[in-house]
């Protein structure tokens, strides 16, 4: 098998603030296979947005490596990086503030084409019309301003803009969180269609595990900037091998309120990133924390095919569950 499109190795991002250093992303490594949708989940402040930005070098990483299609992009000079940028794009959370209110929709979508000097005016207009059509809007919308559109339509404009340069990789940063549930489903299906048609690779950042389960092939769980668990979406959903993933899963609302389920709600707040707990950063809120969790960071523990848990006690806690699932 050829290498994954994106390979992340020991990636870190530190922010220096007056009150100390924040480790927004700390020593994260995983692969995003070509043509797959990888979900990145975590609470607010878990560093998932920073990680997504870092992959496009919209935020400069402090350490580690990102390889895009085999090329290490962390050390690329800006001019070379600009050539790479065409191949990767981002769709934002807020469909209003991510569109310049003073530009017409046609100019918004054509921005990337203009930046790279692709086509002349007429060709760009044709291209924009085709893109609008592809995301379910009409070519007549080109000469209107973004405020004339609903949230879902604006998100479609954002998607069309990201697709204009025909990228291979898209980071969707909470791209449906700001939308109504019914609109969410439409936009999610649009993303799935586009993935199919254009063979896109996506990193889908979300805090909602049910959306991620619907959409993704692989799921990575982030907590306080550290990876907690990564694995195939099915395994993460059915046999999660990390106490944090279990807690997140148990927070998904079910359609049947009487359904029996084991709930392990998390106590307390996410700790300060200025002063994260020693050892496993989750131990202060973990229902299964033991003395060994405080000593040294938990390495990757393989629990299944392409499935790793960053919990020292994973074998003891979930070994039988996971084993049962594989037999």
């Amino acid at each position, binding site marked *: 098998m050829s290498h994954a499109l994106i390979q992340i190795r020991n990636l870190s991002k530190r922010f220096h603030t007056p009150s100390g250093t924040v480790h927004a992303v700390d020593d994260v490594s995983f692969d995003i296979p070509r043509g797959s949708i990888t979900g990145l989940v975590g609470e607010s402040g878990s560093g998932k947005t920073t990680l997504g*930005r870092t992959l*496009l070098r*919209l935020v400069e990483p402090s350490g580690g490596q990102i390889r895009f299609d085999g090329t290490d992009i962390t050390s690329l000079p800006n001019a070379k990086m*600009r050539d790479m*940028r*065409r191949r*990767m*794009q*981002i769709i*934002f*959370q*807020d469909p*209003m*503030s*991510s*569109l*310049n*209110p*003073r*530009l017409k929709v046609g100019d918004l979508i054509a*921005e*990337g084409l*203009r*930046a*790279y000097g692709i086509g002349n005016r007429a060709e760009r207009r044709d291209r924009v019309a085709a893109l609008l059509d592809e995301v379910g809007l009409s070519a007549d919308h080109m000469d209107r*301003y973004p*405020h004339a559109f609903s949230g879902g339509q604006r998100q479609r404009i*954002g998607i069309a*803009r990201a697709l*204009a*340069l025909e990228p291979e990789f898209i980071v969707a940063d909470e791209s449906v969180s700001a939308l109504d549930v019914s609109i969410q489903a439409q936009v999610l299906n649009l993303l799935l269609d586009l993935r199919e048609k254009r063979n896109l690779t996506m990193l889908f950042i979300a805090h909602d595990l049910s959306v991620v389960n619907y959409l993704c092939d692989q799921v990575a769980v982030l907590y306080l900037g550290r990876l907690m668990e990564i694995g195939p979406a099915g395994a993460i959903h059915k046999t999660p091998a990390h106490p944090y993933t279990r807690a997140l899963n148990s927070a998904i609302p079910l359609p049947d309120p009487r359904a029996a389920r084991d709930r392990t709600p998390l106590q307390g707040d996410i700790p300060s990133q200025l002063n994260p707990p020693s050892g496993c950063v989750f131990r202060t809120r973990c229902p299964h924390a033991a003395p060994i969790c405080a000593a040294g960071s938990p390495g990757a523990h393989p629990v299944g095919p392409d499935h790793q848990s960053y919990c020292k006690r994973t074998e003891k806690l979930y070994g039988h569950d996971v084993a049962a699932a594989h037999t």
Partner: protein
Amino acid sequence: MAAASTAMAPPSFRNLLFQRPAAVVALVVFVLIVAACFLLPMLGLTEIGGMSVRKRLTPPGAEYWLGADAFGRDVLGRLLVAGQTSLGIGLGVAVISSAVGILIGLVAGFFRRLDTPLSRVIDAMMAFPDILLALSLVAIFGGTMMNVILALSVVYAPRIARIVRASTLVIRELPYVEAARALGTRTPTIMVTHVLRNIMSPILVQATFIFAYAMLAEAGLSFLGVGVDPRTPTWGIMVNEGRQYIDTAFFLILFPGAAIALSVLSLQIVGDGLRDALDPRLAKET
């Protein structure tokens, strides 16, 4: 808050402006002043006339509507020609200080490393009293119209720069700027299409005020005798000349003084109206 307002629909500010009758009246007054100053002398409807000892200090009447000055010249004709210089200086200062201020403000707001040095220079310049700084600059470089414009632009550019810098700092962090960077748009293009376009309204409002301040400052400089060459009439120079005859021919300072007051006042009201129209947060309840 700031993010919300910049994300707002571009206001159709013609509608908003015309909901404010005071601003419209002020705009009409100002346009009339400009038109009178530039059109009437050009059409030959007024003339300054030669000097005439017999007619000196004639009070306003049928022959000279606004009277004649100490040399027997028509005050009305001079007033209009002087207005061309005064208005020209105001406009020149508004345009040049805006251009310079936009450039400095965008650079200070966009490039963090340059922000501190530029901001300190701006602060230092704003700490000088306006008229004193302009006065020294004109005294050093000489009193030509261009030097007065440049000196006053140096005085007022920091005001624009400050506004531009503050707005740039807000807009720079908005997702659409990040999107532009992800799309490969180069920094100068981002600064113009994404930042400048979204802060044109506060700049326009401030430029209107600077137009008015500059006319006042020019009058002050001329009155103090360090403005443009006294052979070029401006309203300030006319007030200065009339000062000597204040007890015998009051009208000599009345009319140029009124011209200054009327144009500055109307510009300020237009500026206020523009600010209200362009900033929905200040919108009046109707």
